[in-house]
């Protein structure tokens, strides 16, 4: 009984291994592999048997079988010691069969798999040598032979990893050294730096004091509701807001210009130099690793204090609003502002005197916007959105509306959103004084016209559709990554597939039927189309014939005959050619479907692959195509003749 049992189990191992290696996939089926491992793990005799079987499989005259067997060998090799000793005894044979380094024993077909097998074997040998070379002289020998005698290129994984590690360590060391150096210099210059910073801060403080003491903020006028209407358009409003802010600031006059200049200078110094350098020092201090942490910590603390101090001073400067230069690209902006700033200045100054609302002076955007909201109830949601991009109110209705509202792009049409007013055509604030003749100041552009002009134009944007990749399994491993809408030119209609490329939701029956149906349909359609075209051609030809005859009744009978002949020729040619096309499609479709129905097997891998070149050759060199080409050429000659003798058509 026991013997029987054992016999059966042995058969199981062999069967499992053979099943696992009898596949065209690029990897061993993980479930089978797991089964093999679990079976082999339990008894040594089975492991021996497995080793024997695998070595026999390695002798198979098929690279795919050898490749899969090698993968299994690797799995077991990395796990079982007994297996290692068994494999190592015949390592030279294994390498001969997997690397194929002996000239009289090259790797078998198919060549693509053979090259994969070779590179995999070389890679695995290196792996084995790294992990177990110390214990098996044979591994060292084999590795050495391939590397030093046969000069195989090994991936050299370990050495690379070590090198990268080394490089990283060196880099880190260097940065650490640099940091320590910096720290040392900082320790020396710490006091002077602090003094410098302090002096700058002090100077700024003094300047600010002078400025604030010398000027009183001017009273601001309140905006009327009517005027509000006028400034509804967002640009104007922005200008207004700026001006309101400006209003709170100290105005620069000729008296305090010197102070302002100094302040500006100091501010620039503060922002461009001191803040940056302090930030840098802080980062240096946080990263540096030195023996005395105490010193470092105290310095760090001081620097952070200084930084906060600097920030507060900076903020103060900004709040004091001494029209500080933008630190980023002040040069450019200065130049650009020259022209436009004047016009704004006029208006904003006008506004300043009118506005009286003290709340507007506050810097917070939200608070500023509240009064607007209250005042223009009729202002639509869109505008609100524009005004306050960071709306914080928790009004449910509003949020609901927001959710419903269409998202619009910003454009000039938003200025007159929802308004049905007529516009005065010639009153845009430009006093042109009739240089071009008399001006009708009351000219009005009607609301419809405005609406027409403001018609919102949007580009149609297609919804991005994710085209699913084909995902059919490829012979060389991996999945087909082609993205086609319906039909992949290599793998047929695109169906949902699982990770291994097997179609989901389709039983084998439907799978087989579907492509047939499809091809039938395609054929049918193609034939129908060809027929339609042919009919139409015939009709047209007849029609033309009639016309010609009607028109050129006076023509000579000879010419007419000739024309007839030509027409007949043309009709004939078109029919035969298009019918040929139809046939072609038919035959090609039939072949393809049959090829697809056939399951890929190990034997099929050995067959020569039909390349696109072959297919093209088949297409181009068949008799239909040749005849068609000839006909085309002769037709070309006909056309020439016709051009030369136009009266003969």
């Amino acid at each position, binding site marked *: 009984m026991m013997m029987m049992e054992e016999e059966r189990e042995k058969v199981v191992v062999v069967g499992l291994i053979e099943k696992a290696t009898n596949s065209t996939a690029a990897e061993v089926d993980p479930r089978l592999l797991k089964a093999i491992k679990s079976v082999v793990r339990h008894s040594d005799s089975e492991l021996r048997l497995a080793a024997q079987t695998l070595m026999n499989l390695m002798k198979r005259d098929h690279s795919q079988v050898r490749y899969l067997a090698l993968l299994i060998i690797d799995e077991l090799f990395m796990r079982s010691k007994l297996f*290692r000793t068994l494999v190592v005894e015949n390592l030279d044979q294994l390498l001969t069969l997997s690397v194929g380094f002996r000239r009289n024993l090259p790797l078998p077909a198919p060549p693509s798999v053979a090259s994969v097998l070779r590179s995999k074997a070389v890679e695995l040998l290196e792996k084995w040598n790294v992990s177990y070379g110390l214990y098996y002289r044979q591994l060292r020998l084999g590795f050495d*032979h391939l590397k030093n005698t046969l000069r195989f290129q090994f991936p050299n994984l370990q050495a690379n990893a070590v090198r990268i590690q080394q490089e990283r360590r060196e880099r880190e060391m260097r940065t650490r050294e640099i940091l320590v150096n910096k720290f040392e210099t900082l320790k020396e210059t710490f006091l002077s730096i602090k003094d410098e910073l302090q002096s700058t801060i002090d100077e700024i403080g003094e300047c600010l004091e002078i400025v604030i003491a010398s000027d009183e903020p001017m009273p601001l006028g309140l905006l009327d509701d009517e005027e509000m209407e006028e400034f509804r358009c967002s640009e104007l409003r922005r200008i207004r807001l700026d001006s309101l802010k400006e209003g709170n600031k100290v105005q620069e006059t000729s008296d305090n210009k010197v102070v302002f200049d100094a302040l500006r200078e100091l501010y620039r110094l503060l922002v461009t130099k001191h803040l940056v350098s302090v930030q840098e020092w802080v980062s240096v201090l946080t990263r540096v690793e030195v023996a005395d942490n105490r010193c470092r910590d105290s310095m760090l603390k001081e620097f952070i204090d200084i930084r906060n101090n600097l920030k507060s001073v900076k903020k103060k400067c900004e709040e004091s609003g001494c029209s500080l230069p933008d630190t980023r690209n002040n040069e450019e902006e200065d130049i650009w502002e020259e022209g436009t700033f004047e016009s704004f200045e006029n208006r904003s100054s006008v506004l300043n005197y009118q506005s009286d609302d003290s709340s507007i002076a506050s810097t917070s955007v939200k608070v500023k916007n509240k009064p607007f909201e209250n005042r223009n109830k009729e202002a639509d949601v869109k505008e609100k959105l524009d005004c306050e991009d960071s709306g914080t109110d928790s009004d449910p209705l509003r949020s609901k509306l927001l959710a419903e509202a269409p998202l619009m792009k910003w454009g000039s049409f938003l200025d007159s959103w929802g308004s049905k007013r007529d516009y005065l055509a010639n009153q845009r604030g430009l006093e042109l004084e009739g240089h071009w003749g008399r001006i009708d100041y009351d000219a009005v552009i009607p609301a419809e016209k405005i609406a027409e002009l403001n018609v919102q134009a949007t580009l149609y944007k297609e919804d991005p559709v994710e085209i699913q990749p084909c995902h059919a399994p490829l012979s060389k491993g991996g999945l087909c990554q082609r993205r086609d809408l319906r039909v992949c030119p290599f793998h047929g209609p695109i169906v949902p597939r699982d990770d291994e490329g097997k179609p989901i939701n389709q039983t084998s029956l439907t799978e087989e039927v579907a492509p047939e149906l499809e091809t039938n349909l395609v054929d049918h359609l193609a034939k129908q189309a060809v027929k339609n075209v042919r009919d139409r051609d015939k009709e047209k030809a007849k029609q033309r014939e009639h016309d010609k005859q009607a028109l050129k009744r006076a023509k000579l009978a000879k010419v007419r005959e000739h024309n007839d002949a030509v027409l007949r020729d043309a009709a004939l040619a078109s029919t035969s050619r298009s019918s040929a096309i139809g046939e072609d499609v038919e035959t090609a479709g039939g072949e393809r479907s049959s090829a697809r129905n056939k399951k890929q097997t190990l034997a099929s891998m050995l067959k020569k692959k039909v390349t696109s070149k072959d297919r093209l050759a088949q297409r181009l060199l068949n008799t239909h195509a040749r005849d068609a080409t000839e006909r085309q050429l002769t037709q070309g000659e006909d056309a020439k003749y016709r051009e030369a003798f136009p009266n003969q058509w």
Partner: protein
Amino acid sequence: MWKEIRERESGKLRPNSFSNRIRSDRNSSIQLSNYKEIVSPHRGSVNSLQVDLTEGRYLLSGASDASVAIYDVQCATDYEGGGLLAKHKPLVTIDKQHEHGHKYAISSAIWYPVDTGLFITGSYDHRINIWDTNTTQVVMNFKMPGKVYRTAMSSLAASHMLIAAGTEDVQVRLCDIASGAFSHTLSGHRDGVMTVEWSTSSEWVLVTGGCDGAIRFWDIRRAGCFRVLNQSHSQLGRRPPLLQRAATNKVPTSKSLSKGQSSSVKPRAPQRKMAHGNGSKQSAASKIPSQVKSSARQRLHPGMLSSQDRATAHYGAVIGLKVTGDGMFLLSAGSDSRLRLWDIESGCNTLVNFETVRLQTGKAIQLATTQDSALVFVPCMTSVKAFDVWSGATVLTFRGHYEHVNCCWYSLQDQELYTGGNDRQILVWSPSKWNANELVHPLNFETVFFISATPIPVSLVLSSQHYLVFQDEWLKMGKASALDQDNWSD
């Protein structure tokens, strides 16, 4: 093993048979050594290997890139993997860059049998160089008429220092180190001489194997060869009647002078016995002259019958020769992929069928035998096979080389086998130390404690000096097996 040690201690087992038993045990477990590695500096195939005969410590290798190297096989130069791997780097390397180095492949490199101060190299550049080991300088060189295939010196010669050289030339030359000249030119072969070997029983007898397939025996004191081995001569022939035999046996002692026709031989027989008068060898040595003295010989020598003169030992060239340690038998390998065992006394082919598969044909190969001549190691293409000398059965197969193996040398002292091949490697095959497990087994003999909380077996042995010898090896093994173990992660 412990049982045997105890038996030896109590006197039940004689020391000689004890050591033989241990040796044969160890021989049967020879395998590729993992802990001993010779770092070969050669860039060409290794053609010749020899461990010196005096200390059994220095391995000399000659390779076809005209380089010679000497290794210490007892003491490693450095260790790897935490002492697990002993690397033996060459102590001396001589290559083409040396001012007196050989130009072409070295076919043979041998030690001067008396001490390690000299070694001799023969090369395809027609030269034989004699080197001083310590200064690595050429102290003498001989210009040969053709490529040198093999050189040999007699390990038991006390009265001559002759190097026998087999070359492309048909003549075998004996180069005298003492005078620096050729002392003998032995003619007889019809083609180049692939291999030469001195008898291990008589310092005067030389055996040569040629490309013509003949194996010739030479007594260097006399002109011409005295025997040609014939592969078809396998029967001892009719024995002489008992009485007559007794009479002939008495002849050397009683009627030595009365035999007129053998006067040229007789006076020297006692002289030879004097020359190497140590016990066991003498019997074997004395058999040769008795054979020489047989009736057929008188007609054969010096002008042997042409039919016998043309006898061949192999179809094709004779590529390897090895005389067994007792000098009674000769093993020969031929390019016909046959290995033959010859009874030297009668010159018979013993017809032992060695299960060789294939031998490489182009080159001379170097055979090796164990001390008791139980096993012969033969390079068979990429592997080395150990055959039972008497039955011809394959006992062990050593697979490790990736190219053809050219030479092997068996170290009597360590029971280790060194092999060199075309893949430029020199591999060490040593008795497996794994049977150290056996040492632990008999708990009744010694008290052995295992502290085996970890998979590393740490054994503490309280007594037994024998055990202590193995202990550090055992620990080494323990370390090795600890890391090299099963790892079923799932």
